[in-house]
């Protein structure tokens, strides 16, 4: 298992990593009429000074945008840094599609499946 590149969204309530190949930052001038938007602020909070950005998530049959005030960065997560979710906290994190946790040098990043995260948010998980 090699390194996993993730787009990391770090807000005041935590950091979530989405596989970089499945998501992308939407340019400010890129109009995407008809694409539903989901606000991530209730889940992640915001990062001081961060710009409000839109993250495109391409699902199997549609696209969704996640709107966030979190800090955005691309991280390369080494295989050795990826861990299973501790059993006690599984029920909470499973609700938002998190199946692994990455321990980076100065962060803990919850690795979420984008489709599961979107489904959870649309279902009112946050």
């Amino acid at each position, binding site marked *: 298992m090699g390194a996993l590149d993730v787009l990391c969204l770090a807000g005041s*309530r935590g950091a979530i990593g989405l596989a970089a190949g499945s998501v992308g930052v939407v340019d400010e001038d890129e109009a995407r009429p008809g694409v539903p938007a989901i606000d991530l602020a209730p889940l992640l909070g915001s990062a001081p000074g961060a710009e409000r950005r839109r993250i495109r998530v391409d699902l199997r049959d549609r696209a969704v945008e996640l709107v966030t005030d979190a800090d955005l960065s691309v991280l390369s997560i080494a295989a050795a840094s990826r861990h299973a979710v*501790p059993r*006690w*906290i599984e*029920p*909470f994190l499973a*609700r*938002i599609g998190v199946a692994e946790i990455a321990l980076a040098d100065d962060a*803990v990043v919850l690795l979420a499946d984008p489709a599961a995260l979107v489904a959870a948010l649309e279902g009112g998980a946050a």
Partner: protein
Amino acid sequence: MDDRGSPSASDAGSVAYLLVRARGVTIALPSEHAIEVAEIERCYPVPATPAYVLGITSWRGAPLPLVDLGPALDLGEGPRQAPAGAVGRRAVIVSTASYLVGLVVDATLGVVAAGASETRAPSVVGGGRLPELGVAEIDTPRAGLAVAIDVEAFLDAVRVG
């Protein structure tokens, strides 16, 4: 991460407990579950969890959830603790058949051994979830009355938010 709180050997027929304080109540944790007492050096917030989940830290190279014991037991009012505020507090790392968790406490008071004569059914000590989760009341010479909890049952009860 320092200060190992290794359980002491107990007399035959008695049970060893690690005494901790949480929101003014003395809680007795069966020392068979206590692996270590550690000062929290880092704590990272985790979304979609109740307020008593302070976050996750790294312990022995793996993620470890940190649970604020007093609020999780619903022991009276207190300030909501931000994850950054957990830094410098003490956590008792507990291991049960199912879980490995850090219980964040206000203080650790030491290990006592309690035999049948010091142990009775729980009655009036504490509040919150203790009537439901307290399994014994222990009269300790140094810390007065303490409520022993079933750690696995407690972790089960607060796992579903």
